[in-house]
């Protein structure tokens, strides 16, 4: 499919904005203290803000610091 102006239905190669929709608002969100995750969109620059702001509504808590159990050491 081409993306000409006359096309009612256009398909293109993966655009970053479409990919980020899926990677920032899709995918399994791991909660808990074992992982880092993206959530603090307020720190993201204005250009990105609109794009990732969907995350804000969906992930309740802000960016979690990388936390470890008290006695966890790498094996």
């Amino acid at each position, binding site marked *: 499919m081409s993306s000409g102006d006359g096309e009612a239905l256009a398909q293109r190669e993966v655009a970053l904005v479409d990919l980020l929709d899926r990677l920032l608002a899709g995918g399994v969100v791991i909660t808990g203290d074992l*992982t880092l995750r993206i959530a603090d969109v307020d720190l993201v620059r204005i250009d990105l803000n609109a794009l990732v702001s969907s995350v804000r509504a969906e992930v309740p808590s802000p960016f979690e610091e990388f936390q470890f159990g008290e006695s966890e050491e790498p094996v």
Partner: protein
Amino acid sequence: MNDVREHEHELLYVYAVTRPFATALPDGVRGLDGKPPGLIEHRGLCAAVSRVPAEDFNAGPLRAHLEDLDWLGRTARTHEAVIAALATVTCPVPLRLATVCRDENGVRRLLDSGRARFVRAIERLDGRIEWGVKVYAQAQQPFPSRELDPPEPKAATGRDYLRRRLGERQSRDEIWRRAGALSRALHAELCDRAEAGRLHRPQNARLSGEPGENVLNAAYLVPLDRSEDFVAAIRDFIPHIEGVRVELTGPWAPYSFAGGPDDGHGQVDQASREGREEQ
């Protein structure tokens, strides 16, 4: 598969969770470390991972990197490439961008703690793909409209000028109205044909670079063997409406449906979104 030994100052970036699989990944797939992704199997599940430097992926640096569109873009495209490679041999459940564990034990705990969700997600997503459908409203300049008087070549008076401006505004509103009506009808139709539908937030034109305003930004979960019919249905459904454009993206791995309803951000309740404001 590269070795996933423990290293100081490194973290494990987790792309996806799958069932353990025997088939080799396609040649040439590279993770964030430039190597084929590693696989950590644990009690009937498997995590696809790469070693990443803590100096980039610890909370502070990651926060800074997220402000860098180039970095974000590279990371996202690599993540997607790994998911795409996994999808050729198994059913990957994609994790959200930048899911990072401290070490292999962390990955195993991730698999343990999320076991029920991952197993359900694999059952729900296996053999399915995702299609993205977007609708744009784009005012024509000048917009010829049946409802309006033919545009005059030159505004003779201030009143004519104002009338013309009003006409242009009305035509924009009319395009929005048509795009909204098409979006609602199309979404309802595609939800019927798909196993699930989800609305993403409309995209910002400055980021997408797309002309016009994004009115509908939706994703649909479709069984692989019904994919062609689904795409054909979209084509058939779309009337040619002036100023309204429909765009199809995909097929995607089912990113938008990986979380599921129990994550609180999965499939939308269609009825509750039906009346969403059109900005």
